[in-house]
Each structure stands twice: as C-alpha cells, then as structure tokens.
C-alpha cells in the first residue's frame, strides 16, 4: 500500500508559502501522492489551480483531487483544465470526482443540485471522450487521459465508479468501514465485467503533537459543521498519535487499500515533518 499526504488548502490561514513549501517537502519525502479537497463555498483554494502550482515545484509526486465536485463544473472546461494540469505535471494528475456533500456549493456556484448524480455519470463518460478524441489540447500523457477515481457512499456511487472510473475513493473512517466499502466496490467491479485492476483509495485525518490536537478538532468541527452529528463522528476519528497512525495504516493495508492519503488538520509545516517521523 502506498501512503500519500493531503495539502492543507481548506485550513484557515494557509497561504502561498505554506502550500508551496508543503508540496516541495512532500515531493522530497516518500509520499506517493499529494491529495486535495474541494469545497467551493468555503475559505479554501480551488483544487486544480492549486495542483498546477504544486506541479511547478514538484517532480515526482502524483497530484490527486480527492475529490473534486464534478457537477459544479462545465465538463469541457474541466476536461481542459485537468488535461492542462496533467501536462504541466508531466502526467502526474489523478482526477477524483464525486457529488460533494453540500447543497450550498451548488447554490453559490449557480448550478442545479437535483440532477447532480445523473450529471456526474454523464460527465465521467464525456471527460474520457474529450481526452481521447483530442477535441482540444493539451494532449494527455496517458492514452485516455488521467486516471479517474469516483468517491461516495451511496449505492449508485459504486455502480457509477465501476462503469466509468479506474478506482474507488473512500471518504474516511475506521479500517472496518473502508473494508465494507471496498467489498461493495469489488462486487460492483466484477458485476460490471471490468477486466482491469480496481484501485482502492482511502483517507484519514491527523493532528500530531500536544499543541495541535485542539486546533485539529476545532478545524474538523468547523469544516464538517454542515454535516450535523456526522461532524462529531468524523472528528472522533482524528488520528492524534504516531501509534494511532500506525494502527490505522496497518488496518487499511489489511483491508486491501492500494493508496492511503493522510490529511492534516492544522496548517503548519511542522505537521508534515511530524507525519514523516510517525510514518517513518
């Protein structure tokens, strides 16, 4: 299992300096991937734009949207933007898409909320066509364009994933929750008659160091405040010790995860260093 790290782009106070430093240091480290969240109506950075900046200061690490709220975007423009980041990074982009959990994002963006599931399905098919048919450049580095991941926990999310994507992205939780979702993803994959390998991605949140835990919890509660009681639930899963992180990693590995991304909850470069020490 590969281990990647998230960018702190949804944490208050994050600026150009922190993002670039974070990306550089992650690239120098052993992380496989830099992940990034999408949250439109919130004080946060736009994912693809940010990944373009990260692409400019990194050489090796893959760059993944985990996830991007697909239906907020015009599909052709999204295809072009993604192809551009892919080209700027030398083919390191992984495009993860999902519905996004907040109606507010759709309202603020002026995009219809109701039909979002159907639109995401159509979008997934259309993206590939834009890339393959070279309707416009830049030409993607791999035939067929960047690797596509789909996230979401509703039943249609698994079918959608198996129909169009290369893998499934789980939204976080204990290894047991991941394992259950992974079984659904595998079932959907076989049912769809996919002959290729299914990629399973997981994620978790961490805050390391006595000084960080409270800030981490504060961030989680605020970030998920839209989600009601779920906010507390996901906050309770915050990884706050190297031990907890090691157990979490092992649990995910045993559940068959291919790539696990750990997201910071405190916007300070020491968090990256501490994670590196914990993960070893």
């Amino acid at each position, binding site marked *: 299992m590969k281990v990647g790290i998230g960018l702190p782009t949804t944490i208050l106070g994050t600026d150009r300096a922190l993002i670039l430093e974070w990306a550089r240091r992650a690239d120098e480290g052993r992380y496989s991937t830099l992940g990034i969240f999408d949250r439109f109506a919130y004080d946060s950075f736009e994912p693809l734009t940010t990944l373009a900046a990260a692409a400019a200061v990194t050489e090796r690490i893959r760059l993944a949207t985990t996830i991007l709220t697909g239906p907020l975007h015009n599909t052709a423009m999204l295809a072009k933007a993604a192809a551009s980041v892919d080209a700027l990074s030398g083919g390191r982009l992984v495009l993860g898409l999902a519905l996004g959990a907040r109606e507010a994002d759709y309202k603020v963006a002026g995009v219809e909320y109701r039909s979002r599931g159907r639109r995401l399905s159509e979008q997934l098919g259309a993206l590939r066509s834009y890339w393959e048919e070279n309707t416009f450049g830049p030409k993607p580095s791999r035939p067929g364009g960047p690797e596509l991941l789909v996230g979401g926990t509703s039943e249609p999310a*698994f079918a959608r994933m198996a129909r169009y994507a290369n893998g499934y992205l789980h939204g976080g939780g204990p290894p047991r929750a991941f394992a259950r979702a992974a079984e659904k993803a595998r079932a959907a994959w076989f049912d769809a008659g*996919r*002959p290729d390998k299914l990629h399973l991605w997981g994620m978790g949140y961490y805050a390391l160091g006595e000084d960080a835990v409270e800030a981490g919890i504060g961030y989680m509660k605020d970030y998920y405040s839209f989600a009601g009681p779920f906010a507390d639930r996901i906050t*309770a899963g915050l990884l706050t010790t190297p031990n907890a992180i090691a157990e979490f990693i092992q649990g995910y590995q045993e559940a068959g995860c291919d790539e696990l991304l750990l997201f910071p909850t405190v916007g300070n470069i020491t968090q990256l260093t501490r994670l590196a020490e914990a993960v070893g």
Partner: protein
Amino acid sequence: MKILIIGGGPGGLYSGFLLKKADPTHEITLLERNPPDATYGWGVVFSERTLSTFQEVDSETYQDITKHFVRWDAIDVQYHDHTIRSGGHVFAGISRKLLLNILQKHCREVGVRMKFGVEVSDLSDFGDFDLIIAADGVNSFVRKTYESIFQPSVTLENAKFIWFGTDKVFDAFTFLFCENEHGLFQAHCYPFDSNTGTCIVECEQATCQRAGLEKASEAESIAYCEKLFAQALGGHRLLSNKSSWINFPTVRNKTWRHKNIVLLGDAVHTAHFSIGSGTKLAMEDAIALVRALERHRDVETALTDYEIERKPVTETIQNAAQQSLTYFENVKRYFHLEPMQFVFHLLTRSERVSYENLRLRDSRYADAIDRWFMGSAVGTSKNGDRAGDAPRPMGNAFPLRGVKLANRVVWAPTAPYSAREGMPNDRHQARLGERWLREVGLVMTEPAAVSPEGRITPGCAGIYRAEHVAAWARIVASIHDSSLSQSPTKIAIQLAHSGRRGSTRPRWEGLDRPLRDGNWPLFSASPLPYTPLSQVPKEMGAADREKVRKDFIQAAEMADQAGFDMIQLHFAHGYLLASFLSPLTNQRSDGYGGSLDNRMRYPLEVFDAVRAVWPETKPIAVAISATDWSKGGTELQDAVVIARMLQARGCDLVTVLAGQTTIQAEPAYGPCFLTRFSDRVRNEARIATMVAGHITTADQINTILAAGRADLCIIDPPGDPPGNPPSDPPSDPPS
C-alpha cells in the same frame, strides 16, 4: 453530576448502577412509572458473548444474574413431524422480573435513588439536571417530545404476535411450526427458570383474523394456542401476562441525543424478538454510555461518543433482525424443503451464522448436514451412512440431464476483450483454465456473440463462423483434458446478443461507450438508447427477429460441434433478449410487448429454437436479471414467473443476475449480493439456480448450498481482479 434516569427497565437500571459505581459522587435519580415488581413479559435470553461483556464490566451483578440462569446449548426445530437439533449455541435465560429485581437490589446498594409509581410527563421539571437518560422503552415519551431532533421512525411489522409464558420446560431454544385451517402459526419457545419458559406465538395478520384472535379475549387466545400446540406442550399450559396480539414495532432514530438528553435501549432501537437481542442491546448501551462519560469531561461530547460507538452496532443487529423477521413472514415459501435443509436455512436466515460457525458449534450436526446433502445430491439415502464420509456441500456432484458436474463451484472469468473477429484465443484459454480449473465443476465462457453485430465490443469472442468452432473446440478439449479429477471439469458457453449494448469499447475504457469509429447499427426491442451517448437502436422487425433466432440456432449447433457440455442463454443485463423482457426497455405495441407473456414471447421463441437443436442429453441454463433495481422494471416476483415459464419449456437451470437493464438502476452491492434473489427464485419457482454476486469464500458457498438458496455458485476470485488490459486492444469492426 446530577443525573436523571427515566425508566426502570434493564437499560435504565443497569445505567444507574454502573454510573453510581463508577463515580459515587453522582447524584442519581431513577423514575419508574410501575411498582418495583410489576413487569410485562416473561424471560429474556443472553448469548455467551453478551455475558462475558457483563462479567468484564461488573462481576457482582454478573454473578447474581448467572446464579439464576438456566443454560442450554441447543436449538430445536419442530417441523413436519420432525424435530431437528443443532447444538453448541450456548444461551442463558432468566426471568425478566428476576433480572430487574437483581438490578434494583444493586442500584439500592450503591445508592441510586429509585422512585416507583412516578410517570414522567414533562421534562421541564428537570432543568437542573446535568444529564437525562431516557430509558423509557419502546413508546418513549422523551423520544416523542423531541421528535424533530431525534427523527425517529417506527415501523409496525406485518405479522401479529403474542407473548405468553408456559410451564412446559423446554430444554432448548425451540421453534415450532403448526398449520391449521386458519393458516400457519409459529412459536418461539425458551426456558428461563427451572419450571417456566417463554412462548411467543406469531402468525400472519390474515391468519390472526381468520382465527378470530384479533378480537379474542386473553383466555380465548390461550385456549386457542394451547390446542394448536398441544402436542409440543405435552399437556402443559400457556400462562398469560396481559397478553395481546400486536405488531412488532421496529424503532430507529437518526439522532440519539439532544443537548444533555440521551436515548437508550428500546427507546432508541428495537430488534425483532426472533433474534432475542433487545435486553442485551439495552444493557450494552448502558455500558457504552458509562464508558463514554468516563472518557470525556464534557457531557455532550460523551453522548456523541456513545452514539458513534453504538449506532453502527445496533444497525448491524437491526439488519439481522430485519432479515430474520422477513424470513418468518415468508416462511411458507420454504415449506417444500426437507427438514434438514429447512432447519439449516432457518439457522442461517439472517446471514450472521454460516456453515463453518455451525460446524464449530456442533460438528455432528454439520456432519449430518453433509450426509443429508450428499444423499439428496445423488438421490439416495436420506441420512447418509457413516459420520465423516460425506464431503462439504460444495464438494457434491450436480447432475443436469446427461451431464454431471463434479462439484458446485463455477468459474466464469470476465472477458479479456482480446478476440479478433470473434475468434477466441490463448488468452481465453488461459483465463478459463486459470488456477481454479482443477477445483471447479464448471467453467463458463464470456458471453459469446451469435453474430458479429451481437458482440458487445470488437474484442468479444463469438460463435458464428466455421473457424470459431475449431478455436472453441481446442479450448473445450484443454479444459476437459487438464482436469485432475476423474470426472472432468465441464464447460459451458454463454450465447448472447448484445442488442443495444453492442458496438462499444473494451470495458477497461468504461462501460457502454460507443466505438470511436466503425460503429455498427444496433437493434433492440424498442428504439431507446442505452446511455445518452449511445446509438439509438432500431426496433426489431419480423425479419430481424427471424435472423437472430437463426443465429442462435446456428450458434447452438456450433457449440455442440465444439464439444461444449452446456449452454447458457443470456436473457439478462440489458442485452438483446433482456430488452424484450423488461417493461423499461420494451415499449412495443405488437404481440411482443405489453404483458409479461408478450414480453417473454420472443426470448422463448429463441429458447425453443435452441432447445430443439441442442442435444437432448445436454442442459440449458438461462441467465435473467431477477430485478431491474429500478422503478417500473422487472421485480423479484416477475422473476419468479419468468423462471416458471422457462422451466415449463425445459430450461434446466436459472442463473440469477440482477440489474444493468438500464443505467438508472440503483444496485445494492456487497458480499453475496444476489443470494436472496436466488433464494426466492429457487424456492418459489422450484427450479435449480446458479447464483453469482461476489461470492468469494468456501464458507459462503457451503452456507448458500446447504440452505438451498442456490444449487451452484459462481465465484469471484478473492482479492484483486484479474490484471491489466492487454496492450494491443483490437478494434476491428464487423465486416
């Protein structure tokens, strides 16, 4: 802390005791509307696992409770004049009254203030409490007070039940089934002290009405049930406790807490009595709540923590309870099963207990199952002869006409999409002959097209040209030859026409994406595209139908020449023949659309034609989508009718698939996700079934087979799917 507990059932009392014990400075008041020794109902049951939790938490209450236990380890099922016993389950029962008395005593000792005969009806009197625990049972007044926050749902289940006691002492958890002129009744009986037991009687609402029980007095209900179960009761009586016939209410809540108020026990969740978990859940809630309060200084955080921990656990139990009650509501469906299988099916009804679990608990019972299964498989002696001489269920042969499958495991690998002009090649041979080969009874090819246009992708294999026969014959021979066992692995070919799902790219590029160029025209029952980006198919006319029918005939003849042992016709997943079957995809107004009879007409014409040319000694299977997973589409009850129609025409086996009829479907994926569909088709239409649906372990297969939920299992390889797409994807359009 100042704590109020509303309700003196097991949940409330245990919370009070544990909290006070954990921190004697707590000031705890418990209010119960009834007097201390008034109680409804009779006994409750705990499993060994629950008891060890209790022991860990507090050994004194544990000892007091277990001192009074009656323990037993068997489950008896009385059915069709047979009693079948399986052992090793380990249950313990106690009267509810005694349990409450013990908990009351301990509460008193540690100093919980209990007031009986006090009904709480207004929470505003308790504004100065730091924590309010609502353990006020299934009709919780607190839950109703904050309905908008807890967002409860209360479902009244269909069946009627009544809770009796009895002075008959059963020595096992006993399920009784009894049919009379009014209908079927079942009783769930278990002992709880040395001379009394619980006896819950359940029946359909209509049966209850026919028997006149809904309006009957308590004495009349007792007289009726005593007579009904006279044989099992052996002259003993049923005892009442203000018993009446009611529907079981299943309670769920979106949220379990509001500020400093928390729901616990039946107030927040109920699980059907047939899995006997209500008291256990209430007491485990109490444990979790007390631990959460020890962990967090802040009450609200602790309550959230409690909810996070308990909600998934109770949901799992509620799912099992739902499956169990659905089983009992439909138990007549399984009355054709022989007693051994009926009982195994009952024991595994909620998919929480498997074949290996039962074997671990009672190997003699499992051996008996194996022997019975072997006996029924070869159609000889009903009970086998010696212990230990029968294979596990999956190791038994399965005869289909003149073809005998060596065992019940089927390997049907996904297509490699590597054929050119329909020619299967080494990749097909390698995949069909993968590591599984020596262990499976049957391998099955990918859907092989009966014509070039019938292919899904240009890389799909077919069986429509003379050269195909030789290519398939080579593969068939390699499967037959390389098998180690004496009875060689058999091989089936799937015959299919893709219909409106044709002319697409290989599936590693995504499903149902039209070819970049070289698309061929499609047809289907009605001119509806499969996806918004798909080609609009032509509505099939008479000439098209005749052509495709002939293609199927030719393919069947070629399949026989190639040496295949079996054919599976593909009527599922939205392909051509499936498009006739589903009302979602068939909008025809001629004799091939409309009623199910009409929608089946063309698929059956194809079936008949194939059956006519396919050798009499070889079987035909038909794959169907047992549900479209979509409103207005085929549903499970239609699938049962379809299976019956197929059986009447000489179909030997129905392969149960689901969905993919349209892309709007909302499938529910998970381990063994098709098994319950197969169970219904097999046991209602009484036809042999083969089931797919992410089956990955031998234990799953043995459980499915022994319970009679299917006759053959198609397995998915555990772990990772096959591998990477071939590097040289073919792209030849049909000529």
